[in-house]
């Protein structure tokens, strides 16, 4: 989660919110969350699991269309 926060602080194009899945099961179900951490980017489940910083940023860049 901290990586998401760091990215949001570093880039105005990024917003970051943590969602406690057991308190918000409807939202978690809507996105197909079955394990955590699950990262939803622009309303779509993007990836699941902790990843290194470089991979995390790469995933974001791909969502933003900056990478193929």
């Amino acid at each position, binding site marked *: *989660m*901290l990586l*998401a*926060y*760091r*990215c*949001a*602080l*570093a*880039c105005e*194009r*990024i*917003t*970051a*919110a*943590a*969602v*406690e*899945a*057991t*308190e*918000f*099961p*409807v*939202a*978690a179900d809507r*996105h197909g*969350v079955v394990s*955590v*951490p*699950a*990262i*939803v*980017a*622009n*309303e779509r489940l993007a990836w699941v699991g902790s990843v290194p*910083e*470089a991979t995390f*940023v*790469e995933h*974001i*860049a791909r*969502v*933003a*269309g*900056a990478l193929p």
Partner: protein
Amino acid sequence: MNPLGEHERAAIREVFTDLVRDVPILLELGPEEAPVTVLAGGREIDFGDETKLLLEQLTELSDRIDLTVMETEDPGPWPKTTVAGALVYHGLPWGYELTTIVGAIVEAGRTTPSLTPASLETLASLEQDVALEVYVTPT
């Protein structure tokens, strides 16, 4: 429930000595999706009340932190905590997620980014907005 024990308070107070700028925190409370949960042992917990208590305790650990609490009657993803106007947490940041809210405060209290230069360069090249939601659990 007392969210923070003496050992945790001391450790977090030490971490907060790294804050070099003020960190405002906004806690928004309202009708909750799951207002009360019964834990093992039959004890009930109100997520909004517990979040407020936890944030009040964190605020006591640094003069750099300022907590504002707002209440609404409108339904929404409450409790919602916003650190420095940007870093959002929906729910009670308890268990392992205590480190998330403490980490958010620490990150917001820095003046230099903690990402690598390569990451910053990649993020600077983004031409589309990205809204991240990270689903977490306290265990």
